[in-house]
């Protein structure tokens, strides 16, 4: 860079920072929305719309036309057979044309691990989804080192195992409350009453967000991660922007409210906002609104879809494999291993995207600088080269912990221990209460090429016939 460029660059950064710091973040979101709308009216951009059509069997499609980005793959039960074909015939596969542009699909375990561990060549910027999310926010999951490391370190303490130990009792209480409110011997929607409810309560606790409004967190998360442009979902752009604006306003208010309460002498809690306000690196984050918004969105979305769909997936897997449920009841000490197996089997986020920073030979193919590279975790977790009998759900699978749902390398999921703990507690408490958990009817699936999730799953519970040893002592029989 010439000196004059540097000067200009610095001046520009100063101006941008100033604008970022002085214009309220919800207004910035609104401004971005207006720009998008204007482009749409001017015909410069057309919103994507997906219509469901039956997906053919993988054997009937030419290799070069296989499109894993179809947001109905999961709903129609087609992803796994397509993954299997690609792993065998084209493990580093190029699709020249898709609604999300051309992209490479990496489907074998070892290849995905290699890409994920090489942030120098495969960049996580600027997004980690296939499409282009309409709202550009900054989050460290989509940043490369060294910027990534600084931002991540600043917020990850809240889910550090030391804090989790403090939180375990609270999490268990919340799970117990939810489970104790469930009906037995009559069908109800597991997704709504258990998975969403528990995840929402946890997120509200982590963020010290008003408890009665916790469903808003779920709504924002679903809406923001569900645009057609980003993941092939059903959210309209306008709705997404409205949600982003509301989220931004709420969290700015939450931040200021927290600061005021702390200034008034309220003791520090174990919530994320307090943690950010007391850490040197993040105490002024509110002055960088897009970054502030990005990090909060990341924590909400990251803690939402993932745990929720593993909570549903585990019940589905055990219901489809009654022998495994019997095994579990006979030996509950297998729960931690089963939790890993559930996360492998479900893989709540199907992939992460990278972009090649340079031309590179990989897996016998030539990937060009700028190409999108999709690491299909959902496929790596079913790779027969790594997992014996990979489609089977085995709660005592010896290498279940080697699943790749958390990713590898610098972007490895920072909430991994929290997720494991929530699922472990859920299963401990379920076993203490119920003899059977039957899925009644076909589950309904989320429309997305990114989130591997459920929108509805009807379940019927049967209470334990014999009280458990650790349970409350039975009531004294009434005196004759």
């Amino acid at each position, binding site marked *: 860079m010439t000196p004059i460029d540097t000067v200009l660059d610095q001046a520009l950064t100063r101006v941008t920072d100033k604008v970022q710091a002085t214009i309220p973040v919800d207004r910035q979101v609104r401004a971005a929305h207006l720009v998008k709308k204007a482009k749409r009216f001017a015909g410069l951009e057309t919103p994507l719309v997906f219509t469901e059509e039956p997906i053919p069997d993988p054997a009937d499609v030419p290799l070069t036309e296989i499109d894993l980005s179809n947001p109905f793959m999961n709903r129609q039960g087609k992803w796994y057979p397509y993954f299997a074909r690609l792993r065998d015939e084209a493990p580093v596969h190029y699709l020249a044309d898709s609604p999300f542009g051309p992209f490479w699909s990496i489907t074998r375990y070892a290849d995905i691990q290699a890409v*994920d561990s090489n942030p120098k060549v495969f960049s996580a910027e600027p997004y980690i989804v296939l499409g282009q999310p309409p709202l550009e926010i900054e989050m460290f999951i989509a940043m490369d080192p060294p910027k990534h490391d600084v931002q991540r370190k600043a917020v990850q303490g809240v889910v550090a195992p030391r804090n989790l130990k403090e939180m375990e009792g609270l999490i268990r209480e919340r799970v117990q409350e939810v489970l104790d409110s469930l009906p037995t011997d009559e069908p109800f929607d597991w997704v709504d009453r258990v998975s969403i409810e528990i995840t929402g309560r946890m997120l509200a606790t982590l963020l010290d967000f008003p408890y009665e409004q916790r469903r808003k967190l779920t709504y924002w998360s679903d809406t923001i991660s569900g645009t057609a442009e980003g993941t092939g979902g059903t959210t309209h752009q306008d709705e997404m922007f409205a949600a982003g604006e509301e989220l931004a306003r709420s969290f700015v208010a939450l931040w200021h409210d927290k600061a005021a309460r702390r200034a008034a002498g309220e003791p520090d809690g174990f919530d994320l906002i307090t943690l950010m306000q007391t850490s040197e690196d993040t105490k002024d984050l509110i002055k960088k609104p897009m970054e502030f918004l990005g990090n909060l969105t990341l924590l909400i979305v990251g803690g939402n879809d993932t745990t929720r769909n593993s909570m549903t997936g585990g019940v589905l897997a055990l219901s489809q494999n009654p022998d495994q449920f019997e095994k579990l009841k006979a030996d509950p000490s297998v729960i931690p291993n089963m939790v890993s197996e559930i996360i492998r089997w479900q893989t709540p986020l199907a992939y992460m995207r990278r972009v090649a920073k340079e031309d590179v030979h990989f897996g016998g193919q030539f990937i060009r600088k700028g190409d999108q590279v999709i690491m299909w975790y959902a496929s790596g977790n079913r790779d027969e080269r790594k997992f014996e009998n990979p489609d089977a759900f085995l709660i005592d699978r010896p290498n279940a*912990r*080697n699943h790749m749902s958390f990713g590898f390398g610098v972007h490895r999921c920072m909430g991994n221990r929290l997720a494991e703990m929530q699922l472990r507690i859920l299963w401990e408490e379920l076993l203490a209460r119920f003899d059977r958990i039957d899925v009644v009817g076909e589950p309904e699936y989320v429309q997305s090429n990114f989130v591997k999730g459920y929108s509805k799953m009807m379940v019927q519970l049967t209470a334990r016939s014999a009280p458990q040893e650790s349970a409350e002592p039975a009531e004294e029989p009434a005196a004759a």
Partner: protein
Amino acid sequence: MGTITFVEYDGTTHEIELVDGSSLMQLATSNGVPGIDGDCGGEASCGTCHVIVDEAWAARTGTRSEEESQMIEMSPECAPNSRLACQITATPDLDGLTVRLPEFQM
């Protein structure tokens, strides 16, 4: 042919027989040392085999690579001699080595 000692955070020690050519992560997981998970199978890409090498041994085990640093430095318990156990290969030269475990793996 020698031993390597793993010290858990609470002070419990595990003296493990040294197998030439094995990584410390493999030695720990195959001998049931609690607190070493080895989730990525030894590819320096999960950070769940974090150990802290005794000062006196640092010269012989060598120091961590840039790749290792990227994983370990994200842990709040990262110490100057923190290493990934999967990246240290046991050799007869390491007979008598002691490594400590952090309180938690991330």
